């Protein structure tokens, strides 16, 4: 089963899958050939992608692409479903702390049109519902909620408000008006403690005034009560502490995976699989325990490849730090086709990769983790982390990708570019990547290739 690493298209994966089966591949219940997601779910975009050829990558993709089925099954088995919106990594930790609760991320519906090449018409339907293309593609969740058929209607919908993007607020408010009650919790915009004000350390080398942490903790206390009522038992500190510990197991594995891949002399795993793997940090793809197993398998594969000095992208590839998730996954393939490789990433939820403090009262620790969200703080904080990681991972260039309509901070990309240029002087570009970028591939390709050329030309001779 230990084939040399390479990327396979869907046709090639069909053959590879048959071979793996003959060789005795053991899969979890959600396993199967990748092709079935095209046939059954109409995830047509998979036909345009190239995937890592390892069984671990197959497991990752199958885990990702069966989430809705997993949620429906959980509902059928009596679990309560919690939709956690605009919260990339805090409330899910709380929800999974209680038996019988499953958290998911309805905003993730923005990926559905991307995977289905808009064949689901979710974006067009959102437009008919008054949320047009000037809004973030997260608007796809409106018709997904209304129609059902994608994810089950949640038993509880939780959404953060305050220091989040205006687009999302508008979409979520529209959702509530459409008859989906939301439990709102407020997060303030993170700021530096003023002189003489009691300061509080946050994960990710950040700080905030104690008063802000207290505020968020009180809000999370409210959420904890609601989750407890839903589950029929109190979400107390012991549950929360165990939940934090389990979430940290996921984060530790992601940290190990990121180090193993991004710091390696050549890339042992493709950028596309890294993006998907990192996404698991947000809400564990609706199964926290399986997330750990999926990440363990990926990490073992990466370590095995590194041990054998077998890589998917050679050492000459330009080391690119990538900021923000892409709407069209093909962009990640494109980067590697054009001579680049990922050496770091900030997919917008870097706080969900940091360990939640386990030496503090659990709600206090979670409040600090929530306040470390890059979206609730100034862009300069986010850029500082990017600069740190670019330095430590020896990035040769930076890409900030944008999704049309997604504008939680319209100037953020430009600010990050300016700070990175000023601090480390590497070439940096901003790219706009729509849900399906076929028509833009030549121009995207030109920019990425030019970035790779520029990075490589700057290497010491």
């Amino acid at each position: 089963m230990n084939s040399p690493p390479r990327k396979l298209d869907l046709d090639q994966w069909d053959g590879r899958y048959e071979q793996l089966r003959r060789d005795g591949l053991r899969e979890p219940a959600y396993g199967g050939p990748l092709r079935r997601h095209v046939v059954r779910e109409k995830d047509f975009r998979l036909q345009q992608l190239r995937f890592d050829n390892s069984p671990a990558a197959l497991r990752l993709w199958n885990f990702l692409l069966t989430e809705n089925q997993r949620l429906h099954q959980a509902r059928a088995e009596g679990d309560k479903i919690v939709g956690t919106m605009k919260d990339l990594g805090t409330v899910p930790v709380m929800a999974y702390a209680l038996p019988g609760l499953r958290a998911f991320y309805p905003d993730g519906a923005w990926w559905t049109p991307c995977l289905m090449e808009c064949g689901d018409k979710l974006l067009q339907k959102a437009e008919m519902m008054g949320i047009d293309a000037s809004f973030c593609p997260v608007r796809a969740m409106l018709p997904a909620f209304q129609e059902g058929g994608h994810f089950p209607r949640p038993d509880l919908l939780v959404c953060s408000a305050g220091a989040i993007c205006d687009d999302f607020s508008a979409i979520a408010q529209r959702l509530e008006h459409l008859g989906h009650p939301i439990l709102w919790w407020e997060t303030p915009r993170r700021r530096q403690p003023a002189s003489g004000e009691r300061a509080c350390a946050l994960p990710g080398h950040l700080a905030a005034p104690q008063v802000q942490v207290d505020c968020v903790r009180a809000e999370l206390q409210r959420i904890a009560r609601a989750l407890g009522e839903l589950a029929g038992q109190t979400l107390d500190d012991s549950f929360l502490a165990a939940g934090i510990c389990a979430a940290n197991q996921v984060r530790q594995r992601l940290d190990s995976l990121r180090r193993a891949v991004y710091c390696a002399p050549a890339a042992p795993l493709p950028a596309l699989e890294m993006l998907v793997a990192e996404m698991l940090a947000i809400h564990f793809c609706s199964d926290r325990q399986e997330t750990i197993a999926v990440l363990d398998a990926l990490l073992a594969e990466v370590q095995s490849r590194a041990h054998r000095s077998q890589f998917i992208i050679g050492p000459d590839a330009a080391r690119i730090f990538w900021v923000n998730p892409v709407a069209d996954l093909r962009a990640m393939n494109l980067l590697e086709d054009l001579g680049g490789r990922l050496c770091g990433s900030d997919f917008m939820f870097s706080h969900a990769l940091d360990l939640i403090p386990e030496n503090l009262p659990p709600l206090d620790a979670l409040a600090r983790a929530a306040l470390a969200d890059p979206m609730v703080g100034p862009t300069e904080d986010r850029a500082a982390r990017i600069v740190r990681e670019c330095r430590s991972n020896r990035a040769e260039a930076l890409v900030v990708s944008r999704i049309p309509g997604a504008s939680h901070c319209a100037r953020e990309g430009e600010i990050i570019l300016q700070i990175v240029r000023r601090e480390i002087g590497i070439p940096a570009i901003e790219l706009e990547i729509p849900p399906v970028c076929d028509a833009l591939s030549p121009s995207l390709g030109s920019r990425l290739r030019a970035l790779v050329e520029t990075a490589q030309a700057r290497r010491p001779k």
Partner: protein
Amino acid sequence: MICAGIDAGSRSIKVVLFDTARAQIIASGLADQGVEQERLAAELFESLLQQAGLDRSRISSVVATGYGRNAIRFAGTTITEITCHARGVHWLAPDARSIIEIGGQDSKIISLEEGGRVRDFAMNDRCAAGTGRFLEMVAARLDMTWEKLAQLGRQSQAPALISNVCVVFAETEIIGLLADGKPLPDVVAGVQNAIATRVAALASRLASPPVYFTGGVALLPGMARALEEVLACPVRVAPRPQFTGALGAALCARAANPSPAGL
């Protein structure tokens, strides 16, 4: 050794033959772009060989650049316009520290280090408002050549204010201005200013002097002046601005010396 550079742009194809021993351009030519890019490029390439009295076998390497570069299969390799324009402009004007290139379908700003290496770049290829396409639209609407357009722009006394946000809306604005009796030179100058403003938004963070302006649009005299005004710094037109990409490709061919395929 003779190297060739081909710039397959959106509007025209440019070819440069470069004698590396004498370090000079020995032939250059330009043809309108079309559907059969490779055939058009090959015909132009052949005609330049004839003009220079050279046989194909004398060409040691060919590099293609431009948006259509991947269609030029007889080139030994392809390199992006960013690298090629930087190389070409630096060879012609070694003091250049920034390059503005406005092409038919995109615009670029390239920041150079001393020695001509690319420091950074930015591109606009999503919106026609900062590209030569805007001028093409105006020329077509007014039924005149680019040259005539440029002459008109120079006569302007009070340039019109025209949207730089969208070419489609701008076209409507232009029709309205002309219907209102706005003098044609003022409308043309207004278009040039709109393009310059759009490009300046891209360029402002990367442009450091000396700034050189290249690409086909640089041939329009009013454009450099419009850029100077919005950037508030001198903008020099690169020598032979249409050919800097192809020249850069030829210089890259000299450096890389890839074997030409199918020649």
